[in-house]
């Protein structure tokens, strides 16, 4: 697709890296849109890493007891106390939305535009429900008296870490929902019929990244 020669003697492994960087050609054989999305995601990786890193640092150095996330986020469901109930549902919802997005990309490349649009809309709806549940968790914790500077359950740093990390992630999910809705609308309208449907893959990269970040937040914040 990039118009570069795919000669029969295509180098493999490290030789391909040397070729890509040394030859008189564009280094990365992907479209600019996709490359820029990857570079943006690399930057975002650093931002989320630094959030999780600061969380690690304050948790290591806190002298007050760190609250047990398993108990903090438990809910009473049908008279039974279930640990991390809503968080588990949110995790499954985000994974499902990643699945629908991956299939949307596949359909877009098969030129089945309508199916891709529907699956992107399904992804956006799942993402919006994730944000709604996150808002519920926030209001529950705020009602319990947790603030970024104080926490009745132990270490004060818990509130700061929770609101910053999940808030920044929730912001990414919200932005992703809007982004997907815009791309889906333009796709349905036929804006990409001439250029090709790579935009679905590019917006998909962003969406999968949001899911990827949640995998790390789930492990380090909720399960640790």
């Amino acid at each position, binding site marked *: 697709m990039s118009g570069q020669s795919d000669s029969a003697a295509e180098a493999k492994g490290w030789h391909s890296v040397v070729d890509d960087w040394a030859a008189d050609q564009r280094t990365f054989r992907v479209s600019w849109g996709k490359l820029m999305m990857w570079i943006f995601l690399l930057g975002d990786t650093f931002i989320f890493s630094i959030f999780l*890193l600061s969380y*690690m640092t304050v948790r290591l150095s806190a002298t007050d007891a760190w609250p047990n996330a398993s108990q903090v986020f438990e809910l009473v469901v049908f008279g039974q106390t279930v640990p991390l109930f809503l968080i588990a549902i949110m995790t499954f919802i985000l994974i499902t939305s990643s699945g629908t997005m991956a299939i949307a990309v596949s359909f877009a490349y098969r030129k089945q535009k309508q199916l891709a649009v529907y699956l992107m809309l399904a992804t956006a709806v799942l993402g919006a429900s994730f944000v709604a549940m996150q808002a519920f968790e926030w209001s529950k914790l705020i009602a319990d008296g947790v603030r970024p500077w104080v926490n009745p359950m132990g270490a004060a740093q818990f509130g700061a870490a929770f609101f910053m990390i999940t808030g920044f992630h929730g912001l990414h999910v919200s932005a992703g929902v809007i982004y997907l809705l815009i791309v889906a609308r333009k796709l349905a309208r036929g804006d990409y019929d001439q250029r*090709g449907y790579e935009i679905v*893959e590019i917006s998909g990269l962003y969406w999968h990244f949001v899911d990827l970040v949640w995998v790390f937040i789930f492990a380090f914040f909720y399960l640790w």
Partner: protein
Amino acid sequence: MSTEHVQHHPISLYLKVWGWLFLLSFFSYMVDYMHVQGPLRWTLVLTFMLLKAGLILSVFMHVKWERLALKLLLFVPLFAIAVFVALMAIEGDYTYALRLLYFRQH
């Protein structure tokens, strides 16, 4: 990766990965539900986390089919984060020790 490449992935591949992600999330939830504690808990949580991250990156984000030059662009910079983690782990422990030494309530 060329677009022709992606078209050949069957939908069943994505459904399979989806199923695995579900299963791995369920396992990591069970670690908490069954109250597994200590080093075993951390090992399991990290293992399931890395497996999930690997599946999302390699299949859903198509990194598996990208050229090595792009893979290096994505993964070499993460070394800086690893160094930062090590530094801050030492720093966190040091701060904790100082707080115990000088700010202990009597």
